[in-house]
């Protein structure tokens, strides 16, 4: 990925990191990191439950949007504080795999919804007769 002349520098950086973390690449968290992650997760979980259970907003679209947005934020919090994701681990390959997976997930989700939505809208309308003869 990185151009050839930069390779030794990257190697050196990887080695110093390596020595620091006692031979384990997937860096461990600290107590502080876990506690920060936990507190953030509790807040990010409590807000969407509160929004839905207490019916805070009249607009369902707004509540739905907020729930999904908070969901994405919380997933990122978990990735950073619990799974210790960072762009450098394994020379960037975990991040590459993650980005690839996210692209596939995006295609699968949006593609399914798009196709099935059109299938539903373009379905031949059912007459009363057909409805009665349904299995």
């Amino acid at each position, binding site marked *: 990925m990185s151009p050839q002349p930069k390779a030794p520098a990257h190697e050196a950086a990887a080695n110093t990191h390596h020595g620091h973390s006692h031979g384990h690449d997937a860096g461990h968290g*600290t107590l502080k990191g876990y506690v920060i992650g936990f507190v953030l997760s509790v807040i990010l979980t409590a807000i969407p439950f509160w929004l839905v259970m207490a019916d805070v907003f009249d607009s369902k679209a707004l*509540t739905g949007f907020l729930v999904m947005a908070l969901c994405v934020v919380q997933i990122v919090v978990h990735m950073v504080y619990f799974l210790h994701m960072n762009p450098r681990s394994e020379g960037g390959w975990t991040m590459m795999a993650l980005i690839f*997976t996210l692209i596939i997930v995006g295609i699968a989700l949006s593609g399914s919804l798009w196709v099935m939505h059109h299938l539903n809208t373009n379905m031949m309308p059912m007459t009363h007769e057909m409805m009665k003869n349904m299995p």
Partner: protein
Amino acid sequence: MSEKTHTGEWNENQFYLEDDHHPEGSTMLGFWLYLMSDCLIFAVLFATHAVLGRNYAAGPSPADLFDLPLVAINTAMLLLSSITYGFAMLQMERNAKMETIFWLGVTGLFGLTFLGLELYEFYHLIQEGAGPGRSAFLSSFFTLVGTHGLHVTFGIIWLVTMMVQVKMHGLIPENRRRLMCLSMFWHFLDVIWIGVFSFVYLMGVLG
């Protein structure tokens, strides 16, 4: 391989094999790739639920069925198990064998509570006549949440195995590697659950 290096005749051909081969690192990357493929399984199940989630077949809707306080407690259980697993990893860093086993045990108890509540919920739904065969919505719901529950079940089996392993052999490099893999697996399941409670339960009740 080591025999060949002792004879000396293979040394010139053996570039970097000794230095650059990191079995630990590649295990982590390989396990991460497994998790990403698992992520695709869940993505497809989420997509199925997104498509079928409104097809109630004149049956009960999420607002009729889901008990949000129970889901909130369930979420709390999984979140607590995530941080206690973090504590186990911190104790592993300190080389504290018994403390590691203790925190693994606490994590397992939270996991079991989560599983128990989920089974209670499933049992309750089926008793009400809202089993997986009732409507497309319930089929996709049981498949998605059940697959997650199955993962948690296997996580707990793995967890108990690791408690025995650490007890018998101590915190040897192999066990550390396995504990780190399990750590990724466990936190990954929590990430999936965030999607489940937001998308299936909260969005479902929202209608």
